[in-house]
């Protein structure tokens, strides 16, 4: 899978690289919220996306190699697409039976996750998760 390596040429894309540490998640929540607000999502969808990014990144951070980076890319278009990746020692991902996965699928419109091979150096596995959230108003 090459999903994490597809930069979007549109000008709206935002990529954040941050320590793969749970202490950094409030920062990501704030950014997520700013992205969704500026797309004029309704308050329910903003809150859902915020929780979803929080949940997804929590799952990734848990599995990340200590001292590595969490990368989160936001692509706001007709829907907001979020792709988050970390480097992990394990390729045991994702656990779709976990409650977190259930939470994520409730909060999002689409959800996918997988593993791609990391670069030869430093090695490891790239765990990725991709989710999208549509503005609820678009459904009307």
């Amino acid at each position, binding site marked *: 899978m090459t999903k994490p390596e597809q930069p979007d040429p549109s000008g709206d894309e935002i990529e954040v690289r941050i320590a793969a540490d749970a202490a950094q998640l409030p920062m990501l929540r704030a950014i997520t919220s*700013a992205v969704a*607000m500026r797309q004029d999502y309704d308050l329910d969808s903003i809150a*859902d996306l915020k929780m979803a990014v*929080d949940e997804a990144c929590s799952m990734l951070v848990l599995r990340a190699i200590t001292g590595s980076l969490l990368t989160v890319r936001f692509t706001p278009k007709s829907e907001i697409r979020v792709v988050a990746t970390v480097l992990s020692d394990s390729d045991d991902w994702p656990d779709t039976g976990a409650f977190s996965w259930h939470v994520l699928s409730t909060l999002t419109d689409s959800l996918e996750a997988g593993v791609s091979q990391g670069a030869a150096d430093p090695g490891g596995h790239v765990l990725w998760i991709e989710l999208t959230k549509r503005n609820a108003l678009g459904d009307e």
Partner: protein
Amino acid sequence: MTTRARTKNGYEHLAPLFHELAALPQDDPRRTVLRDELVTGHLPVAEHIARRFAHRGESGEDLVQVATVGLINAVDRFDPTRGTDFLSFAVPTVMGEIRRYFRDSSWSVRVPRRLKELHLSITAAGNELSQQLGRAPTPSEIATRLGLSKDEVYEGLEAGNAYHSVSLDDMLTQDSDNTSLGEMLGEPDSALEGVENHESLLPLVRELPERERTILLLRFFGNLTQTQIAEKIGISQMHVSRLLARTLQKLRDGLLEEQ
């Protein structure tokens, strides 16, 4: 120039009033007059103490009010027959009141008054709009309703993140914990069946306070939106959002501990 007996602290002239007040029967109308005079006379003390805390980001006006409440309490509780002077009794009482105010105040981060008010009016407008629209409003709808710029609405929405867990709306809706939410909402326990697929989660969910559990179940197993849940429970969508985020965090931490 009036010559007051400013011997020690400038309030000596008020001291006899305490004795006069103490001597009056409980129902004497003059008690109110004396009490007012004592409170007014000592106001500079309250203002002085309030000023010392003003740099913490609360508005000075609020703090003076809180300090004045402390001062009134001190006047009411002071016993002149004990031999201590009023100031050494009043200062700790007023400071205590201000400390309590900081402790209880609902914002974990000092948020300027303007932002708090902005957040509150956005919450109110949000509630109104969701009633009218039958769904959660967008920031631009809120901006139009309140005659604000979208940026102001973004700012006010974000200010809500500084809410403490013991938030204002928590206090306002505390009563809902007394009436059983289970009764109010039908059988939320049937939704627990959904949780049973996640065995390790069940004990954690059962431990949650009733309101948090109900919100969790309605959102993730009943598939209601936050706005629909807010309406059912009688709190704001933003409050549901905060409670839900906190609950998920709690469950994550709990599951982690188990491993």
